[in-house]
């Protein structure tokens, strides 16, 4: 339990380095306001899903090197499969942040599900290269 908390604390530090969390939050807020303003319909759904995926994946792409180094260090310092999965899920949950308010606004949970699934896929590809 303590080990998991320690790993999550380390993961948080990844997000706050280079203000990644700040930019993710700012992009989420502005994108949500834009979706509130735009006329609802097919175009709003299309934009919401595409923009959420773009913000999440581009943010993770900006942290790619850091995540690779983190997963390598985790492996060398004795982190097991559970630690790895914990980091994978936690990182994906944070990266999917832009999709949550849009899912609520448009009453479309599949937006969050799709963005989360893609985030998991992206992070797992990064972790697979290590070790």
């Amino acid at each position, binding site marked *: 339990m303590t080990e998991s908390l320690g790993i999550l604390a*380390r993961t948080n530090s990844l997000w706050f380095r280079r203000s990644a969390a700040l930019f993710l939050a700012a992009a989420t807020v502005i994108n949500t306001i834009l979706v509130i303003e735009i006329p609802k319909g097919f175009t709003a759904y299309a934009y919401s899903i595409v923009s959420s995926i773009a*913000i999440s994946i581009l943010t993770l792409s900006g942290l790619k090197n850091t995540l690779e180094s983190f997963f390598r260090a985790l492996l060398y310092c004795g982190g097991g499969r559970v630690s790895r999965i914990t980091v994978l899920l936690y990182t994906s949950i944070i990266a999917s942040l832009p999709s949550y308010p849009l899912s609520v606004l448009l009453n479309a949970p599949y937006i969050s599900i799709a963005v989360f699934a893609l985030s998991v896929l992206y992070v797992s590809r990064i972790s697979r290269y290590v070790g």
Partner: protein
Amino acid sequence: MDVLAIAHIAISLLVLALLLVIFVRILRTEYLGDERRSIVYGLKNQQISSQFIILARYVKKLIASWEYLLLIITFIAMALVLSHHVEERETISMTMIPISTNLAENFSILYSSSGLNLTSLPEGVVVVEIYLGALDEPTVIEAGQRIFRAFSIIAVNCSLEAGHTLESGFRELLLTLCQLREDRSIYLVTNRPLDITSYDKAILYYKDKELEIRIEGYGENLLRALKSIPCVGDSISGFVNSMRYSGGLVTPGRFTEIFGLNNPGIAVISNITPTIGIERLRNTGAEIICSGAQRSGEAIMYTVYRHRPVIQQLIDIIIAGLAGGMLLIIFNRSVIPRIMPGSEAILISGGTYWISRLLPLVSIAVAELLSMLVFTLSYSMLVPLGVGGEPFISPPGFLLVSVISLAISVAHMMRVKTSYTTVSSAYIEKAIPVREYSYVVEDLSYKDVSRSIAKALETSEFFSIMEREVMEKEDVISMRLRLLYRYAIGVGADVSIYISKHNNGSFIDVEVEPWSVDASRGGIIDSVARMILSRISGVIIIDRISRDLGKN
């Protein structure tokens, strides 16, 4: 937007995405490069400067990436949203205004500067229709020896019946408006005095039409009646005044077709009042709806605002610009770590420090400008497909959105650039991160060297050895060590050492790959690499000095 348009957009987007994917795949596999490669014997002089090649590689690396594809698709989706046509929003304000003529509660007066559409109303409810129009070209009337010109026209179509119960005051107003004779008579409004009150035989010329008409002088009292229509009078007073000075015609309803008047500007409606049928009245496109109030001498005036408020449009433009800017910033942040290390290649190839910092940013700017071009093209293709209303962001607003997005991105890039050492035209010496080390040492056997290096790392106060593999074969020793840095958590390095026999001495090749739980490059990572390399090089130098001293 109908189903066909949506299908068209969806297919276009899919085709565009497919083309981009194919393009990216081709560039990634370097299929094109392989096709063009030819066998070259000997050396060829390089015609293009190395900096240009590096810039071209930057741009290729940026454009042929999934991140860029995502950015382009998002901008196309944003263009789809911004070009989406929206129905104008309506807001209604209600005010009580004093009126000089009594207006019955069961009557409503509608006004629209762009014309009313009365087809949605039931038959028989329209009592009076008044058409107001400025003529495309002046109409000319030849009456005896005199020529009159008119630039505007008012046509009144009355369906006033005896069954309509009208209050005094309003009755007189309607009777004044409806006193026009429904024959070939046209009433002339002019500031020039007429010789006689009417001309029985006059000819009206309008465009290619020629009509024989009867001209009568239109009384001042009728113009005054128009201006005294409750709630509406003020709105049409400008039109009436201009008619009085420049000349105009007042005709019965049968002339509307000749002058191309399709929709009335003012209508008096009976039996539908705002209290029971505001939706019906709004659907006519009315800007002002007026009906009688319970208290005599007052009327209820509803003002309908159909245009989106300018402030709302401005807010939408700013939000869209900010969203575009944030997207570009996130794209910058995702590609900068990948292309920034390449600036060292520029330094090595002879470029100055500021060029090495500027070129990656220029390549990002080129990529962003291309994405903005796609954004603009998508918007201009999608706007004409919209049906009804106006685009969510108008074309000038879209231009502003693009400018705001680019400005935000440029501001971010400027910040990235200036976060390094101040830009200078001078060549600035800078430590290039070193991860590899090769050395040839004379008169020291490869076995002695490997023993010294292994001992130096094992006894280091900064590192503890986690793993050690040594492979010895003939004249070659290959070592792999995994070191853990003792003074930080989760920091270490993998060290690969290759030592071989070289004449009477040894050849040493060391490669260090540091790793950390916190950082990926720079800072402690570089420090750890330098510490390991200095430890190895130090022990070799000490061995060499000891050997030289031993000789002496």
